[in-house]
């Protein structure tokens, strides 16, 4: 259950961003693209690193004892080229990190300027500083766990909102389709 709550918790952030970059795609293209391609890529990725780790674990390496943030580096250590892989992994975490923070700044800017597609630079700037400050304070006080619990709890009402969103979409689509059939615009 915990997993689903997490994905729901991230869905306003990720969903708003995905919506923004998907303008001009058809619904079919959009859903096949968002559902299938990233899933397959995730599967390939998880199998590769997961099985490499499991094989070494079975061969006697004590990988499962490492804390999660060190696990990947522990796996690399069991292979040749471990330094190269570790450096690439660090760069990758860095660029992923910057991308997430950047898209979050954008999403927060968008949400607080009545859904503008190009939030003003000073709004993004303010959110950028604020989110890093919040993250730093939470890391320092250990308050992150409490807020995560609160977030997981908030997914329950949000899951009901999601069901309503689906119904709302369906309602609007039916109306849209009737209009299309009348005017044959596409």
């Amino acid at each position: 259950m915990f997993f689903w709550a997490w994905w729901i918790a991230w869905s306003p952030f990720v969903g708003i961003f995905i919506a923004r970059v998907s303008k001009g795609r058809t619904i079919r293209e959009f859903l096949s693209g968002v559902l299938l391609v990233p899933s397959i890529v995730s599967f390939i990725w998880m199998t590769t690193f997961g099985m490499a780790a499991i094989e070494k674990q079975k061969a006697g390496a004590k990988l499962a004892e490492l804390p999660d943030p060190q696990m990947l580096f522990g796996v690399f250590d069991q292979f040749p080229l471990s330094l190269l892989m570790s450096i690439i992994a660090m760069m990758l975490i860095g660029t992923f990190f910057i991308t997430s923070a950047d898209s979050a700044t954008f999403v927060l800017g968008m949400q607080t300027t009545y859904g503008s597609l190009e939030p003003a630079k000073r709004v993004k700037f303010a959110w950028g500083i604020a989110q890093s400050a919040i993250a730093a304070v939470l890391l320092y006080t250990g308050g992150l766990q409490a807020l995560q619990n609160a977030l997981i709890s908030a997914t329950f009402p949000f899951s009901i909102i999601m069901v309503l969103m689906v119904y709302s979409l369906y309602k609007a689509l039916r109306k849209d389709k009737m209009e299309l059939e009348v005017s044959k615009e596409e």
Partner: protein
Amino acid sequence: MWGAFAPKNLESITGNIKSYISIHFGWWYLLIVSVFVVFCLYMIFSPYGKIKLGKPGSKPDYSYSTWFAMLFSAGMGIGLVFYGAAAPINQFMKTPPTAEPGSTAALNDAMRITFFHYGVHAWGIYAIVALVLAYFKFRHDAPGLISATLKPIFGDKMDGPWGKLIDVIAVFATIVGVATTLGFGAAQINGGFTYLAGIEKQFWIQLVIIVIVTVLYMISAYSGLSKGIRYLSNANMWLAIALFGIMIVIGPTLYIVNSFVDTLGAYVEKITARKLTHFT
């Protein structure tokens, strides 16, 4: 604020609410994620699939490769690097549902559960939120807010306090989600330093990491969506492909390929058989 100054107090209260929901409403989450996947599949194959998320005749903003790179960077990103090895091995050694930890049965379960957690159900959740927003925003010129998507049901009531509440929940979720992501990222980079250079996990190191990253992403944010995030997302893809390429060649290639084929087969079979309870 409360969380920042009295973390332990708030942690126990919110922890209790969280466990209450997970014990009593686990079925609800499983039900809705399955319904979302079915709805997405229905939309793909129905005539509605032809409708454009934009005005008739408009073209997509980004090429396929850039679009996928952006989807992926936003949707999984750090989580995939963080849990790429950790999720399967934790399922295998620490928390297999029924099998003996470390056994072949546990291995099969570990990969199957990992696929389930990172597969179409996860992306279906993102897809639903994104689809509904994009449809109303780009086709009906609604503001890009969650509250605006509910107008066909509730009408102008969404301009009042209820609509505000919904948008505030979305902003709250984004802030906490990002704080979590930044926390994961800082911990993982710190973990890398620990492993490579013996530098222990310390708050000030994580703080320095956050400050450096903040400067970098502000530069990126300042340059706008079509430059900063676009270049970064493509850089992510190349780095990920490089790392994957090295691992698949020097790692246990056959073992990986066999496991992939087996697990994918089991995954497709299970989700089409609708026996979702087999997964959790």
